[in-house]
């Protein structure tokens, strides 16, 4: 299974909140113009579903800066014994 690296986590959280709040604002304006709060609600819900699809699974684009682990040290102890 893919993992999400630390940069990917940060970016995912930004994308997710920007998406929800931007669409929420648009939905609020649309709802006000059409005098229907149902519209606002479905805009926010839609943005949440979309960002769930984009940000929840460990898509490869969230793993473009994987952690570079150090190479394991050579273990001489077993040879000595």
């Amino acid at each position: 299974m893919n993992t999400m690296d630390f940069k990917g986590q940060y970016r995912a959280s930004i994308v997710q909140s920007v998406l929800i709040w931007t669409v929420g604002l648009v939905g609020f304006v649309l709802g006000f113009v059409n005098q229907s709060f149902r519209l606002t609600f479905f805009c926010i819900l839609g943005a949440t579903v979309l960002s769930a699809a984009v940000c929840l699974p460990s898509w490869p684009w969230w793993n473009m800066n994987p952690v570079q682990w150090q190479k394991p040290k050579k273990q001489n102890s077993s040879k000595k014994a």
Partner: protein
Amino acid sequence: MMDVSDLSSQTLSTKMMETLSTRANTLFCSFLSCLAFFAVLNHLSAYVMFDPTPRMDVLEVEKVFPIRNTRQGDQAVFSFNMEADLSSEFHWNLKQLFVYLTASYVTSKHKRNEVTVWDKIIETVDDSVLSLSSEQVEYVLKGEDYLRDRNVTLRLKYRTMPIIGLMREKVMPLTKTFKLPGSYDHGASSR
């Protein structure tokens, strides 16, 4: 043979990295905060942007039927005409209006009697202009004692039910007072 360093990096990564449920939790939290924020804005906009001016032009009693004297006490039925325009109450934070006509009267046992004689739930602006003629009451006036010659006052009240916020009860200023008949309906008398 087990590679110790590989195992430790595995446990480290699962501990440090956010899990799927952590991310789902954050997402749900954003959803709720955003919804709550705009819901509060919606509520406030109704205060600032909308000023309801409900109108009521006609409230009159069309016909008062003779009082029936039953074992439970007197029962009075009447019909009425009413014209009211509640369309200005509607805005985007209003779910529905509960409109009801009350009849209040005094009896010898109780100083204050109030009966809802007619009600209606208005869900859309299109239905918010009421024009009723010869509308019969839905619920009869019942008295534990005599209702003959009692004065009855009709009042239109309504309850605003918003999507976000508190329900309010409003009373229309126009009232109508009439006198119940002094004689019984002998044909329907059960006593």
